[in-house]
């Protein structure tokens, strides 16, 4: 048994009180004032009875009651394994968290970081050290609780070697994310740690330039554990002037709109910006004045078409790491749409008239719309080059095979069951023998669309309440479609008579979108409605090849690759090219700024280019105020606090654990109850004895 407040045990001396009272009860109480004691011999009251204790039981009860009370005040508790673990596991854990963001490339910052880390490793002695680096994400160099049984010297040596391998990268700083992740990991570890002192014994040694661009917002949503402390080693660079570039827009003519950000602690305000091509140095630098801590937007002149500029370079500041802005003008995509319909020049009654107009050419795409009439020659395009097939007339057998083939290879076909369509083509397309899959519906007045699957990509853009009103879209007539159950299909919308209106039938790798209505004004208001063009383009976008790949990325961003790229290779700036795995959809190795090129093994597929630039936040190199971290609830530890202070802290925590344990057990309550019982018994016994004595006296 242990005691929370053992000093109270001194009160055990009080047990002498009842004994003393038992002994001194014969001492006279009265005081007589006498004229003179000259003739009185000192004859104290009879001593033969003085040291004799008459009522042993009473004395015992009183003594036990006193002892119990004293013990209760000392707050006893039983130790358990948790406490033993807590006392045994008093080792301190140091977590080195080193900033490897691109802003750390400035001047001597990285050198300072390594020195600081080295000193911490030296001071840590027997402390466990975990090493993490962070930029936009947290990277483990040496995890928590590494189970290597090395000597301290070996461990230190290993840690230093690990440090030497580290270099600052090009990523942005997400300090908030790094801290929250570390804290979450420690909390996770603390759950499995029964003593609960792990968090208290952990210190995060944060080595960073703590620049203004470091994102710490995620800390606002995180409840920082009160026990976990962070010691901030804020590195400082003498040369503080820094400015950075951000691309805001790049038009087809190669004209860039650029923002220049000047750091808040910058000492320079005059900069030059110029295009730089691969072949030549910068030409015609544009002077720009940016006050410290502010930014300016400039429109760069159009690039020379002959010499496509690869980047914009900023000069005039002290740090070069963020002075290049890579450019990759987006290339116009060639899109081919084949319409099996009846061409009718200028006729507003033809489906072709509306379909053609639903796909305008834009800066991003160049639409080639081919209308194939019943009498037209066969289309000699490669299937891979057709992005969408629209069928609004009855197809010939060869044409049907062609469409089927296209579907098999992953194509998207919009099949309109309009007045001109017959059941046969549809039957052939879905390869089903059942006749009368479709029949003319009896429409009394008009039909409306209901049960629309807004979550489908076809209707996703109409999900917002302001666009989801389809009641103005009226259908004068349509075809009833009864697809057998063995044909897998998904009804995307129904008419108000519950007959399917739009059905998605997956065929092979492709998608067959069937509309049971025609879009010409004779049949419905669809082609004239605001829903027509978005829906037609949404159908075009169902084609996997149509994924619009952007060409500008930030370091660390994931690039989504088109599905059509098979066994592609990505050439990376200043490094050997990376072979992509089959079916790999994401490219995550955007680790440094520069031009990237994806080349497919398929020679027909043109190479895709994209550029990766630095996050503009990294250019905001002015140091942040430490108070910002404190305001977000981080417990910052001052540098002066030594490990001794840490051990005191650990002791305090152990005390807290003991207190908690004592409060759980609450043995003192039982002791008080027993003491009260003893006193009650003593009272009864004393009364009985007194009664007995007085009775004897009377007798």
């Amino acid at each position: 048994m242990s005691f929370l407040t053992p000093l109270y045990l001194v009160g055990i001396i009080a047990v002498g009180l009842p004994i003393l009272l038992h002994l001194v009860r014969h001492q006279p109480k009265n005081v007589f004032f006498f004229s003179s004691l000259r003739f009185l011999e000192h004859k104290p009251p009879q001593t033969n009875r003085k040291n004799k204790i008459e009522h042993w039981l009473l004395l015992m009860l009183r003594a036990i009651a006193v002892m119990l009370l004293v013990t209760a005040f000392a707050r006893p508790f039983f130790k358990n394994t948790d406490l033993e673990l807590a006392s045994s596991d008093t080792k301190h854990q140091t977590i080195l968290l080193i900033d490897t963001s691109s802003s750390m490339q400035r001047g001597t910052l990285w050198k300072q970081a390594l020195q600081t880390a080295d000193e911490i490793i030296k001071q840590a002695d027997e402390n466990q050290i975990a090493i993490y680096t962070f930029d936009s994400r947290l990277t483990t160099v040496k995890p928590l609780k590494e189970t290597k049984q090395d000597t301290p010297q070996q461990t230190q040596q290993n840690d230093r070697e690990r440090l030497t391998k580290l270099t600052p990268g090009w990523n942005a700083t997400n300090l908030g994310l790094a801290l929250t992740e570390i804290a979450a990991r420690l909390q996770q570890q603390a759950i499995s740690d029964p003593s609960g002192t792990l968090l208290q014994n952990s210190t995060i040694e944060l080595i960073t330039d703590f620049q203004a661009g470091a994102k710490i917002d995620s800390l606002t949503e995180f409840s920082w554990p009160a026990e976990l402390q962070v010691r901030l080693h804020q590195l400082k660079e003498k040369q503080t002037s820094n400015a950075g570039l951000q691309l805001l827009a790049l038009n087809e003519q190669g004209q860039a709109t650029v923002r220049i950000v000047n750091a808040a602690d910058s000492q320079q305000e005059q900069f030059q910006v110029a295009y730089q091509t691969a072949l030549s140095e910068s030409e015609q630098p544009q002077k720009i004045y940016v006050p410290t801590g502010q930014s300016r937007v400039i429109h760069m002149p159009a690039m020379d078409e002959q010499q496509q500029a690869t980047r914009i370079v900023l000069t005039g500041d002290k740090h070069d790491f963020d002075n290049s802005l890579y450019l990759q003008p987006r290339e116009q995509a060639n899109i081919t749409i084949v319409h099996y319909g009846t061409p009718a020049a200028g006729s507003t009654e033809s489906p072709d008239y509306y379909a053609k107009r639903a796909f305008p050419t834009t800066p991003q795409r160049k639409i080639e719309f081919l209308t194939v009439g019943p009498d037209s020659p066969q289309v000699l395009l490669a299937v891979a080059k057709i992005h969408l097939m629209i069928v609004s007339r009855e197809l010939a057998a060869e044409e049907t095979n062609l469409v089927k083939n296209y579907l098999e290879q992953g194509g998207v076909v919009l099949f309109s069951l309009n007045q001109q369509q017959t059941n046969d083509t549809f039957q052939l397309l879905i390869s089903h023998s059942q006749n009368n899959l479709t029949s003319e519906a009896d429409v009394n007045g008009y039909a409306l669309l209901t049960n629309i699957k807004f979550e489908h990509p076809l209707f996703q853009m109409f999900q917002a309440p302001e666009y989801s009103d389809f009641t103005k879209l009226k259908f004068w007539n349509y075809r009833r479609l009864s697809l057998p159950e063995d044909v897998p299909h998904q009804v995307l919308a129904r008419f108000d008579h519950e007959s399917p209106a739009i059905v998605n039938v997956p065929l092979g790798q492709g998608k067959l979108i069937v509309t049971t209505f025609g879009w010409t004004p004779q049949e419905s208001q669809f082609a004239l409605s605001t829903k027509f063009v978005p829906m037609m383009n949404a159908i075009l976008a169902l084609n996997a090849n149509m994924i619009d790949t952007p060409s500008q990325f930030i370091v660390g961003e994931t690039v989504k690759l088109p599905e059509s790229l098979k066994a592609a290779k990505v050439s990376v700036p200043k490094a050997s090219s990376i072979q992509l795995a089959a079916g790999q959809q994401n490219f995550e190795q955007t680790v440094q700024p520069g031009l990237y090129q994806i080349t497919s093994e398929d020679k027909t597929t043109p190479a895709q280019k994209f550029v990766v630039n630095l996050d503009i936040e990294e250019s905001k190199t002015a140091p942040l105020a430490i108070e910002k971290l404190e305001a977000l609830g981080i417990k910052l530890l001052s540098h002066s606090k030594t490990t001794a202070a840490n051990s005191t802290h650990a002791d305090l925590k152990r005390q807290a654990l003991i207190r908690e344990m004592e409060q759980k057990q609450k043995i003192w309550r039982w002791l008080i109850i027993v003491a009260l019982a003893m006193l009650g018994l003593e009272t009864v016994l004393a009364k009985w004895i007194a009664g007995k004595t007085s009775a004897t006296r009377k007798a």
Partner: protein
Amino acid sequence: MSSIRMKQNTSHTPQQSKRLASQRIDPACLMRIKSLELRAKSVVEGTWKGLHRSPYHGFSVEFTEYREYTPGDDPRHIDWKLAARSNQHFIKRFEEETNLCCHMLLDLSTSMQFHSLGYSKSDYAKTLVATFAYFLSTQRDASGLIIFDEQVESVVPARFTRGQLRRILIELERPPQGSHTNVVSPLKHAVETIKKRGLVVLISDLMSPLDELNTHLGYLRAKGHEVALFQILDPAEIHLNFNETAIFEDLETGDRIALNPKAAQASYRQQLNQHLEEIQSICRKQGVHYHKLTTDTPLEAGLSDFLADRAA
């Protein structure tokens, strides 16, 4: 004349004694009277009045006898008229010849504060002094008072003026000051200051050591003074008849002892008796009238014993 009366007084019959005894006032009742003067009057006016003799022959309206002048007599006392008639020198002896000069030495030390009867030894002693003073004033005798404890506290020189009794009573009303008893200093004082032979009455409990008592009493006697010693004691002091065990605190020294009185009684009595005997032996040796008065004794008894003793 006085000698005749004294004789009468000293040889009172058993009936007289009985009457006197019945007239005596219980000290407890007496002490309830607040005024010392009243107390003294009560005692004196009972029986005793003008019953003592003086070593001096004074002047009085009525003379009692003539005697022939012998050298050494005060010529002032020669009856010149008789001398003119008879050509003989006679000395007149007057009726009122009791010009006694009495000095009372009262011990008011803290040990005199002890009481077991509701009034202290000092109350008793003060009443005794007041009684003496009143008695003497009624006899036109001079009385003086010296109050002492460890030293002489106040002195009222002996006179037989009208206000003398008042002065003595005022002195007696004063609260006691000191603590210890030192009988020597008042005796020394008496030896040094009292020039006229007279009566010196020492009233004390004499619980203090008796080292120099003998010597200083001797000095007084040597100067021709008649000395009477009244030892005032509380009955509890004599018998130590306390029932319960208690802590006894010395009134003078403040010493405390826990005591079982029953156990200590025998030894105490023995020692006290030894002490008293010692005092008596000193008194006998020096020709001092010794009177032991316990505070439960009626004052008249004390006085009568004293007067009887003097007359003897």
